[in-house]
């Protein structure tokens, strides 16, 4: 399995998500955590970019960080999977290694 990339920065303030996507090979997964979860929602100026990335990557978002921020799982972009901390652990073990784009 290729690797898991984690992104914890808001896509509206930093270029971290762009950088992660540019360096993820086809089949690599992206996990959005902390302020990175804001990239997961429909109706934002970054939503199209994220949807396009779904053709090459599985994208996950950390549910606890979504709820904390008052964002609704109903508005998560179709095709993005919501996981809890247990799911985060599973992703870490399923993929070969983890690259944290801090």
């Amino acid at each position, binding site marked *: 399995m290729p690797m898991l990339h984690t992104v*914890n920065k808001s896509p509206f303030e930093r270029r971290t998500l762009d950088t992660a996507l540019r360096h993820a090979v086809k089949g690599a997964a992206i996990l959005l*955590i*902390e302020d990175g979860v804001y990239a997961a929602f429909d109706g934002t100026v970054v939503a199209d970019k994220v949807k396009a990335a779904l053709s090459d990557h599985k994208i996950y978002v950390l549910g606890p960080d979504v709820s904390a921020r008052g964002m609704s799982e109903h508005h998560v972009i179709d095709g993005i999977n919501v996981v809890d901390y*247990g799911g*985060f*652990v599973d992703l870490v073990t399923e993929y070969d290694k*983890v690259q944290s784009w801090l």
Partner: protein
Amino acid sequence: MKLSVLVNEGPYQHQSADSAIQFTKAALAKGHEVFRVFFYHDGVNNGTSYAVPPQDDRNITQEWTSLAKEHDLDLVVCIAAAQRRGILDENESKRQGKDGFNIAEGFRISGLGQLIEAGIQSDRLVIFGD
């Protein structure tokens, strides 16, 4: 699997420490071994015994201490980063001629080699930071 965790930011200022705690708990709950949690950069501030956060909020250092006790976790604070930022154990305090020390229960101070060792010995290294 054998996992290690690296924490690069201090408690409260960034969510990193909280995320690391939740991740570590979940990994232990799933039966994985957590080989080591290493604290680097401002992450060393997770290990201060002097913090008294508001009672209606979490106490991050205490959560680490409890986790360490329950699961025999190895919590290692980088010595070079700790010296820069004022985290001392009793030995360091004496060596540096300070009046007291502030390393919290369950944490130990050691060298960066412990981070490299965690990278070598663990199946996965997961980094939390800013």
